[in-house]
């Protein structure tokens, strides 16, 4: 029958795609569990700074003073980025490095009160438990190769999910939803659990899996944006000599950007010479005010000598796709209850992975035992035949 052949084919696909990716997926699910709560954990460890309370509407200090405060902490370094975080009101973070071309993971942070331009307790650069979890989860300490490899594992995971769904129909055709045969055999019990949890968390695993794969392409997306839209936006400056001397006022640059996009607010400013802009521009990345538009960024380029706005655009679709997929992978966009639900789905996925692994072992053992039985009975028959002949 054709359907039996089909089921066998889906089973083979399910077995092999799962076998290859399961151990990596287990690692991802386990390391992802604490990462869901990274805000809460940082807070518990006292790693997040809070700005002291001040009356509502206290005026903000000039961004130029804030940058100066950052520079004073590290006089030999250059400022690369200045950014804001909705989770930390009234705080601006200045990101410095020993050179403008230093690798992205080499940086020092200065946390500044937005109203007084006073430096708050500088955060310790985190090399502890959470850092290890994050590195394992994103690239297993193996840079872009590790990241893309995990992306590939994610694709296999998606294939395993799809083939699993194709098997659910034929397997469950004669049974009720949610059946768990506790009294038959351990293997059947685990099989039923695997089917039940797998089909219930199905769409969560698909969403988190696919957005995870998209996240592994972040470096590729950055490269596409640099060589596409950014290159177009800075084309008039291609042959201009590098900026010499002081940069124009950052405070004025951000005000100009806000005027060009009045419905938005700045999220991060990239200083001239960094990978997110040209050698001549401040890039002010503006974000919207609603939950969805806050994920959609508009880059405004400000000439860092004249202080004039030279271009502002909406990001291309592939950048938007990345930014929209980030929250759907992290689960950090709906308060603590969503994070707890996220963790429960994650644990269910871990059980599906482990039960799948167990089923493969148990099946192998069962197959081995069957072959053994056949061989034994073969031996018995042969002995009988021999007896008769004698």
């Amino acid at each position, binding site marked *: 029958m054709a359907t039996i052949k089909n089921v066998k084919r889906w089973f083979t696909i399910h077995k092999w795609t799962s076998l290859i990716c399961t151990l990596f997926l287990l690692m991802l699910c386990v390391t992802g569990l604490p990462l869901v709560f990274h805000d809460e954990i940082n807070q518990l460890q006292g790693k997040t700074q809070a700005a002291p309370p001040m009356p509502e509407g206290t005026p903000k200090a000039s961004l130029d003073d804030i940058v100066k405060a950052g520079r004073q902490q590290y006089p030999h370094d250059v400022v690369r980025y200045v950014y804001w975080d909705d989770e930390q009101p009234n705080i601006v973070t200045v990101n410095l490095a020993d050179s403008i071309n230093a690798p992205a993971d080499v940086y020092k942070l200065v946390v500044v009160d937005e109203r007084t331009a006073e430096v708050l307790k500088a955060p310790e650069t985190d090399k502890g438990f959470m850092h290890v979890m994050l590195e394992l989860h994103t690239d297993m300490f193996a840079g872009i190769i590790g990241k893309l490899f995990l992306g590939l594992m994610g694709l296999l995971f998606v294939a395993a999910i799809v083939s699993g769904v194709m098997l659910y129909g034929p397997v469950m055709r004669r049974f*009720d939803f949610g059946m768990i045969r506790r009294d038959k055999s351990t293997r059947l019990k685990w099989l039923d659990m695997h089917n039940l949890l797998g089909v*219930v968390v199905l769409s969560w695993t698909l969403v988190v899996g696919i957005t995870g794969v998209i996240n592994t392409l972040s470096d590729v997306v950055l490269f596409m944006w640099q060589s596409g839209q950014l290159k177009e936006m800075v084309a008039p400056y291609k042959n201009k000599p590098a900026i010499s001397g002081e940069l124009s006022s950052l405070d004025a640059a951000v005000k100009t950007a806000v005027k060009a996009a009045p419905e938005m607010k700045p999220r991060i400013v990239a200083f001239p010479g960094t990978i997110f802009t040209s050698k001549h521009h401040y890039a002010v990345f503006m974000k919207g005010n609603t939950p969805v538009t806050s994920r959609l960024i508009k880059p405004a380029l400000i000439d860092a000598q004249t202080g004039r706005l030279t271009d502002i655009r909406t990001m291309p679709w592939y950048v938007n796709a990345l930014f929209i997929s980030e929250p759907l992978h992290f689960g950090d966009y*709906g308060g603590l209850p969503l994070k707890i639900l996220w963790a429960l789905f994650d644990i269910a996925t871990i059980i599906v992975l482990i039960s799948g692994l167990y089923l493969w072992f148990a099946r192998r053992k069962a197959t081995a035992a069957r072959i053994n039985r056949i061989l034994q009975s073969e031996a018995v028959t042969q002995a009988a035949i021999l007896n008769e002949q004698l």
Partner: protein
Amino acid sequence: MKNNNFLQLWGWPLLLAALIMFGLLAALIGTGLWHWLSWIALTVPVVTMGWYLFKKDGSGR
């Protein structure tokens, strides 16, 4: 022998998948009430798993 029709087989999985998709998107497009709707929608599949996993009287067949 039992032979499920489409709804008997896929009704629950489809309903739960729809609830999860709604829950994931609701928290993304709004705050306040939308967050509550999201939490409620996503609690249903979690409770469903718990119900069948810890049910005492075993199989339903």
